[in-house]
């Protein structure tokens, strides 16, 4: 069956996530329709969901004021997959360490915003990530990126670290990255989050034609 994907589109690099989801689906022979989520009422129809990069203060403000926040929580509670990148990760965390961001608490992690510095410190680098389809390093792009803290005691598993600090985690149906898998043509992270995550429920491809 054809899948419905949602990209939370209140602010950020939405088109890039939409294209990455389409690439990941096409590589697995799945059909997908991507919808941009700017208002409430659309998330319940989505099989999978992405929260993009952008500004976490803006995104958190608008997902709450537009009534999308409780729908994202319900999506994850139903075991459906969510990929949250950079600002999306900050919003999905349990503690953004900043009262300007209202978190969703979907991942048992704290984050430090702009942990690697300002834009002049932003960087790209090959990154070893657990659980990808092969062992090649992932071309990770970090833009004013957060780092993940306080994973101890929670259920989040660390998939990748940079300079000793976790930058990718997985907990049940949720995958969070501090970097931007949507900015490169490599769709392995989207594949991992949406199609190779055994803890997430995605409608299967039916054999009947």
């Amino acid at each position, binding site marked *: 069956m054809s899948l419905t994907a949602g990209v939370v589109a209140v602010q950020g690099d939405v088109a890039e996530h939409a294209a990455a989801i389409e690439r990941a689906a096409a590589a697995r022979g799945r059909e997908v329709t991507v919808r941009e989520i*700017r208002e409430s009422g659309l998330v319940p129809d989505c099989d999978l969901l992405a929260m993009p990069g*952008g500004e976490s203060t803006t995104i958190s403000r608008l997902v709450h004021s537009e009534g999308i926040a409780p729908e994202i929580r319900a999506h994850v509670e139903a075991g459906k997959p969510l990929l949250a990148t950079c600002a999306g990760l900050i919003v999905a965390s349990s503690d953004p360490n900043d009262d*300007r961001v209202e978190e969703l608490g979907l991942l048992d992690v704290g984050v430090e915003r702009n942990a690697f510095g*300002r834009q002049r410190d932003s960087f790209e680098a090959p990154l070893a990530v*657990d659980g990808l389809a092969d062992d090649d390093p992932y071309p990770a792009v970090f833009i004013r990126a957060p780092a993940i803290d306080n994973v101890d005691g929670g259920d989040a598993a660390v998939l990748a670290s940079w300079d000793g600090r976790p930058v990718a985690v997985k907990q049940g149906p949720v995958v969070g990255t501090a970097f931007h898998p949507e900015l490169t043509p490599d769709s392995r992270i989207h594949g991992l989050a949406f199609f190779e995550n055994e803890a997430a429920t995605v409608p299967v491809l039916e054999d009947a034609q």
Partner: protein
Amino acid sequence: MTDETETDLEELRRGTDLVKRGFAQMQKGGVIMDVVNKEQARIAEDAGAVAVMALEAVPADIRKRGGVARMADPADVEEIVSEVSIPVMGKSRIGHTKEAQILEAVGVDMIDESEVLTPADDAYHIDKRDFTAPFVCGARNLGEVLRRIDEGAAMIRTKGEAGTGDVNQAVHHQRTIKGAIRELEGMKHEEREAYAREIEAPAELVHETAEMGRLPVVNFAAGGIATPADAALMMHHECDGIFVGSGIFGAENPPAMAEAIVEATNNWDDPERLAEISKNLGKGMKGDANADLPEEEKMQGRGV
């Protein structure tokens, strides 16, 4: 656990096109607000701005005051940088490499090489490829857009006519740029080559734009946006996001206006929401109609 020996910290690269353009992509769908001090920066961040533009005076005041308009005092820029958690941008004069380096040194996240300030160089823009910080530049047409990208700009905005509160020129520039891209898409290879010569743009970028059917970098609206409806109009014209200069702190109730423009940018395609958002905001900035502006007072002709 990840085997960390596989990740080599030495392979880190800063200031690449991907990292610079990526920063601009993260601003999409957002509103970037002009601020002149940390109090305004706080209001902007609280209203949901994706970034603030630190400058000495908003364009409407620069227009009124006359004289030479320069980069803001770096101490004021630093104060704004430490006040907010969102990115801070700063304006340098066109061609003023040193102002841009100073802004980079105090930690601004993006430099606006801006026609709102008095140009420092009549013939050349800054060689933006030498910088780690990304640049945004204004443009009125596709030739200007592609010349700026060729110089290293990671983001483009319409010039509009800054400080007027009249959206007319921003619309005109956006229509001109989009119209040229549509025209390009219908051209054969050799026609695009000739077109590149005509608009004085690198042929390579002309072909890239034609094949993508859009600019290779993010394209924001700027210059004269003063109300939530103006912001929605520019999103309707397929801008990726909005710069607001004098429209917020020149309005009667800046926090309400700022918040309304952020919400209108997200809900640009929903007239009923726009109606609600636009209610009871107090007076907008007074402004000056573009049609009444003498040619010598226009900023948009600076730096082509």
